C-alpha cells in the first residue's frame, strides 16, 4: 500500500469560541482528487487553509508527502511555500498591478528560477490553460473565466505536488462552470498532482472527485468515492445532503415490535427494543404517489412539482417535515393538492443515531 500524499490526524482549529474544525482525520492517496463537500460554514475553507499553511492548527497534525508540516503538539509549522502546495483562491487573488505573464512569473522569481526556466515554464502553463494570447494583459482587462484560468496557471507554475482549490468556480456562470469542470479534470490528469477541492455544490463534487469527504460542523462525516457516498451514505446527514434530490430520513419510534412515524406503521423493527428511536432512510425514487390513503401511506401537501428529464420531482410537506419523491412520468398537479406518498416495505437503511441532526418532526 502506498503512503498517503496527505495525512491529517485529529485536526482542530478553534477561533475564539468557535470550533471551525473539530477533529478531522483524513488520508488522501497520491494523485487523488478529493472534494470537500459540506454546507456553508462547516469548516471547508479552514481545512484548506490549514493544509496550505495559512492557518496554524490548534491541535492535531498534518503530513504532506510523508513529512510533518504542521503539528499542534510539537509546535511544527512549515510555512506555506515549504509545503509544495499551491492554492487557487475563490477570489482568484490575481495581483492587479501585474500582467498575466507577471502574475504567473512572480512566484517563480521568488523561488529563484533562472530567467530561461521561468519563461519556458510560463509559456508551458499558458498553453496548458489555452491563454497564450492574454499574457500582456492586466487582470482587469480579461473576463472572469479567463481570470480563473490565469489563477490556475499561476498556481500550477511552480509544479506543486498538492493543489488546493477553494470554490474556484463559484464566481462563474453556469455554462462556464461546466466547461471549467472538464478543464480541471484534464489538468488533473496532465499534472497528476494530488488535489483537494472545496465546494458546496454537490454536482461539482460528484463530477470531479475520485473521493468525496462530506463535512458538517467541523467534522468529516464520510469519505468515499462518489458512487459509494450515493449508494451507502454513512450518516443521516450525508443521506439528506447528497443526491439530487437527496434522501428522506424519517424519525421512527419502536412500538410493539414495529417502527412508527406518528400514526404511520412503517416496518417491522427487527431486534430494536420497545420505545427506541431509529432514523430510517427512504430514497425519493422508492416512494410512490397515490391518490388514496392506505397502509404505509403518508398524507402530504404538495409544495412543488418539478419536471426533470421525463420525470417529476415532488416536494411535499407532512406537517413540518419535508419529503421528496421522484416519479417516472410527467405529472400535472397543483401546489397545495393533498396526496398520499406510499413508502416501500423496508427503508433503504436505518441509523441508530442522527448525530444531533433534526431529521424531521
Amino acid at each position, binding site marked *: 500500500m502506498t503512503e498517503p500524499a496527505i495525512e491529517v490526524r485529529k485536526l482542530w482549529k478553534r477561533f475564539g469560541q468557535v470550533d471551525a474544525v473539530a477533529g478531522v482525520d483524513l488520508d488522501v492517496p497520491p494523485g487523488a482528487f478529493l472534494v470537500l463537500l459540506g454546507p456553508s460554514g462547516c469548516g471547508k475553507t479552514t481545512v484548506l487553509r490549514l493544509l496550505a499553511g495559512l492557518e496554524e492548527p490548534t491541535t492535531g497534525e498534518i503530513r504532506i508527502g510523508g513529512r510533518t508540516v504542521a503539528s499542534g503538539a510539537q509546535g511544527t509549522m512549515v510555512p506555506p511555500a515549504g509545503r509544495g502546495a499551491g492554492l487557487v*483562491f475563490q477570489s482568484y487573488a*490575481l495581483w492587479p498591478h501585474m500582467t498575466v505573464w507577471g502574475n504567473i512569473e512572480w512566484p517563480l522569481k521568488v523561488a529563484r528560477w533562472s530567467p530561461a526556466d521561468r519563461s519556458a515554464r510560463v509559456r508551458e502553463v499558458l498553453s496548458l490553460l489555452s491563454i497564450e494570447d492574454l499574457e500582456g494583459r492586466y487582470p482587469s482587462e480579461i473576463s472572469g473565466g479567463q481570470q480563473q484560468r490565469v489563477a490556475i496557471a499561476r498556481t500550477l507554475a511552480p509544479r506543486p505536488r498538492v493543489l488546493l482549490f477553494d470554490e474556484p468556480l463559484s464566481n462563474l456562470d453556469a455554462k462556464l462552470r461546466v466547461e471549467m469542470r472538464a478543464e480541471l479534470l484534464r489538468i488533473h490528469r496532465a499534472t497528476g498532482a494530488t488535489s483537494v477541492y472545496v465546494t458546496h455544490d454537490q454536482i461539482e463534487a460528484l463530477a470531479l472527485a475520485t473521493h468525496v469527504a462530506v463535512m458538517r460542523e467541523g467534522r468529516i462525516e464520510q469519505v468515499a468515492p462518489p458512487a459509494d457516498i450515493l449508494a451507502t451514505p454513512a450518516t443521516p446527514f450525508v443521506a439528506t445532503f447528497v443526491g439530487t434530490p437527496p434522501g428522506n430520513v424519517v424519525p421512527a419510534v419502536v412500538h410493539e415490535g414495529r417502527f412508527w412515524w406518528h400514526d404511520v406503521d412503517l416496518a417491522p423493527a427487527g431486534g430494536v427494543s420497545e420505545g427506541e428511536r431509529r432514523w430510517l432512510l427512504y430514497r425519493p425514487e422508492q416512494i410512490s404517489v397515490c391518490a388514496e390513503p392506505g397502509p404505509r401511506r403518508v398524507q402530504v401537501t404538495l409544495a412543488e412539482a418539478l419536471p426533470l428529464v421525463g420525470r417529476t420531482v415532488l416536494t411535499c410537506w407532512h406537517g413540518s417535515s419535508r419529503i421528496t419523491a421522484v416519479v417516472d412520468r410527467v405529472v400535472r398537479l397543483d401546489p397545495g393538492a393533498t396526496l398520499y406518498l406510499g413508502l416501500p416495505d423496508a427503508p433503504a437503511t436505518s441509523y441508530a443515531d442522527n448525530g444531533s441532526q433534526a431529521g424531521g418532526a
Partner: protein
Amino acid sequence: MALLSAGVGAILCLLVLAPLVRLVAVTLTPDGLRAWQEVAASELSRNLLWRPIVNTLAIGLAVGAGATLLGSALAWLVVLTDVPGRRLIGVLASVPFILPSFAVALAWEAAFRNGRVGGHVGLLQNLGLAVPDWIAWGIVPVVATLIVHYYSLTFALVAAALAAVNADLLEAGAMTGASQARLMGGITLPLVLPAVVAAALLGFAEGVSNFAAPAILGLPVRFHTLSTRLFGAISIGQVERGYVLSVILIAVAGALLLVGTRLGGRRSFAVITGKGSRYARVRLGRWRWPACGAALAICGLTAVAPGVTLLASSFLHQPGAFAGGWTTHYWLGPSSPEIAQGQPGILRNPQVLHAAGTTLGLGAAVAVAATVLGVAVGYCLARSRVRWLTGLIAQLSYLPILLPGIALGAAFIAQFARPLGPLPPLYGTFAILVVAGAAYTLPFASQAGRAAVAQVSTDLEEASLMAGATLPRRFVAIVAPLVARGMLAAAALVFVKIVRDLSLMLLLMTPTTPLLSVVAFRYASEGFVQFANAITTVVVAISVGVTWLARRLQRSTQPWMDHD
C-alpha cells in the same frame, strides 16, 4: 432638474470662478502689471519672490516626503501587523490633523523658543537647555510642525487604502514563499501606491500653502514663504503685489496636485472579484514591542503634547517659565495694570467673547451653507443629464482644493471689496466670511454630498415620481431625509474646519467680525503668549470635541479600525 443644475452651476461660478478670474484680472491692469514686474523682475524680486519660493518649495517637498513616510509606516503597522495597541495608535494618529496648524506651531514655540529675537523664551530654554537657532526658528521647525499636522492625513489615506486591499492578494503572495520585505515591495506597495502618491502630493500642496507655521516660526527671523509674503504685502496695502503672489502661490500648489490627480486617475487598481478573506497579520516577532513603543511615542507626542503644552503654558505667570509660578489670570483674571498691559483673562475679555460668538456663528453658518450646497452639487452630479453642466459643476466644486486658503482670501478681497452689480461691497461683513468659508469647504462638502446622494437609489425617487411628486417635493420628502445622517457628520466637520481656520479668514476678517483663531494669532504676534495659548486651547477643545461627535455620527469613517 435642468433649472436646479443651472442654479447650482451659477452659484459655483460666483463662488469659485468669479473671484479667481477677478484676481487674475486685477493683476493684468496697469497697476497689476507693474506689480508683476516688481515681484518677478526687479531688485526686490530676490526677497519678494525667489527666496520665498525656494523656501516654499523646500517646505512642500520636505513635508510631502516626511508626512508620507511617517503616515504610511504607521498605517502599515496599524492595518497589517500584529503590533500591540493598534487601536490606540490609530486613534491617536488621527488627532493631529484635527488640531489647527497654528496650535502645533504655537506649542512648538512655547517649548523651543530661544532668545534670538528677544522677548520671552520657551520651556526648554527656561529649564536651562540652550536651544539652537535652527531648532527654534526657520525651516526646520516649520517643516517639523507641518509634518506633525499632515502625517495624520497621510495616515488616514494610506490606512484606508491598505484596508481595502483584498487579503487574498497578500496570502497568494505568502503562498509563494516570498519574504515580508519582498511581499511589501512586490505586492502591498504597488497596490497602495496611488494612495501613497495622492497623499504625498496633498502633503506637498499643504506644505506649500500653509501660512500659520511659517508666520509663527519663520517671520520673526525673516524667514519668508510665498504665503507670508502675500500676507505681508496685502496687510501693508500693496494689494496688487499680494494678488500677484497669490496667483503664483495658486500656480505652485495647484499645478502639482492637478498633475497628480491626472496621473493617479489613469490606473487605479479596483479590487477584481469575490470576497476577501481574513488575513493573518504580519508577525513582528521581537519587534512587536519596540514598534509599539515607537509608534505610541510618536503619536502621543504629536497628538497629546501640543494640547498639553498649550494648556500648561496658558497657566504660567511668565511665558515659558515654571519658576514664575502658576496663575489663572490669563483665563479668568480681571484687568490689572501690572499684568499684560491691563488685559483681562480671556473669559472676561469682551473682545474675545465677541470673537467666540462670531466664530461659532460663522462655523454654524458655513456648515449649513456648505452642506446645502454640497447636497445640491451631489444631486446634480447624480441625476442631471446635461453633460457639460455636470462637468462644469464637478470641476468647480473640486477646484478650491487647489487653492491655498490665504490666496483664496485674497481672491475674495479682489472680488468683493467693491460693489458687485446690485450687491453692496461685502468686505468687512459677516456675509463675506460665510461665502468664503462655503467656497473653501466646498470640495469636502460636495464629496460628502455625492456620497450621501449615491446612497439614495434612483428607484426610490422614481417611485415618488410615479406618485406625481414634483422635484422640490421629492427633494424634501425623499432625498433630504435619506441624506441627512451622512450630511450631519459632514456639517460637523465643516464646522471644525472653519472654527480652526486661520489662513482663509486672516485677510477677510475686520475688527467688527473678530474670530478666535485670528485673535489668538494677533496675541501671539504681540507677545501675549498665554492669551494666545489659552484661546488656542479652546479652539483645540472645540475641534477635537466636534470631530469626535462627527466620527460617532459617521461610524464608518475608519473602516480599517474594524479590520481584525
